[in-house]
C-alpha cells in the first residue's frame, strides 16, 4: 500500500465527500480523517464533530493478503485516475477487550479527488467482524483469502 498519500492534505480540502453517505449513518456525507497519535488507527470525524465518528485502521499490515477488486462503477464514482491515489481503511469496533475490523466493507478514499466510498464485498460477507491483533505474523483468518461464493 503506498504510504505516500497524505489524507489530511490542505485545510481547504480537509473533508472527504461520501456521495452516498455510509450505511447506517446516511445523514452525513462529509468526514475528515485524522491519525490517532502513537498507534495505527485513524478517526473519521464529521464536520464540527456534529455526529458520531468512526475508527479506521490500515488493514494491510494486519492482513497482508487482503485484496479486492474495485468495480468499474465504484471507480467512476471515486473518479479514479491512478491507483496510487487510493487509500483503503477498514472500520474498527471495540467489543469488551477485543478489537474487530470489517474486511467485508472497506472504505476507499481517493486522496486527490477527496471522494470516498464504503465498498461492500459480498464474497467476504463472512468477514464483517474479524479479530484485530498485533500486526505481522502469525497470519490470521481473513488474510490471504480468495473470493468465493457471492
Amino acid at each position, binding site marked *: 500500500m503506498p504510504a505516500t498519500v497524505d489524507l489530511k492534505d490542505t485545510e481547504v480540502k480537509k473533508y472527504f465527500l461520501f456521495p452516498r453517505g*455510509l*450505511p*447506517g*449513518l446516511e445523514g452525513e456525507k462529509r468526514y475528515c480523517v485524522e491519525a*490517532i497519535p*502513537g*498507534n*495505527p*488507527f485513524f*478517526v473519521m470525524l464529521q464536520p464540527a464533530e456534529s455526529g*458520531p*465518528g*468512526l*475508527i479506521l485502521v490500515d488493514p494491510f499490515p494486519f492482513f497482508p493478503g487482503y485484496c479486492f477488486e474495485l*468495480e*468499474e*462503477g*465504484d471507480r*467512476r464514482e471515486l473518479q479514479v485516475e491512478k491507483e496510487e491515489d487510493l487509500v483503503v481503511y477498514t*472500520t*474498527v*469496533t*471495540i*467489543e469488551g*477487550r*477485543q*478489537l474487530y475490523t*470489517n474486511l*467485508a*466493507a472497506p472504505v476507499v478514499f481517493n486522496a486527490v479527488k477527496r471522494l470516498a466510498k*464504503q465498498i*461492500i464485498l*459480498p464474497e467476504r*460477507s463472512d468477514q*464483517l*467482524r474479524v*479479530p*484485530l*491483533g*498485533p500486526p505481522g505474523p502469525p497470519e*490470521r483468518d481473513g488474510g490471504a483469502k480468495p473470493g468465493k461464493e457471492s
Partner: protein
Amino acid sequence: MLVLTRKPGESIVIGDDIVIKVLSVEGESIRIGITAPRALPVYRQELLEAVRQENLRAALSAEQPEKLAELLKKPGE
C-alpha cells in the same frame, strides 16, 4: 411498489439491461437469477443491513479511542 406474478422460467426486465428471472421455487425458497451490468452492485439485503449494524457499532466504539492502543497490544483472545 409494483407487484407482478411470475412463474418459474419467467422474467422481469428493468430498464435496458437488468433482467430478473425466477429460476425455481422450492418450498419457501425462490431461486432468482439476475443479469445486470457489472458496475451495478447486487447483494442480499441482509448484507447491507449487517454493514449498517457494524458501522453503528464502529461509531459507538469511536467514543472510546483511548482503549485502542491498549487493546491492540493484547493478542486477540
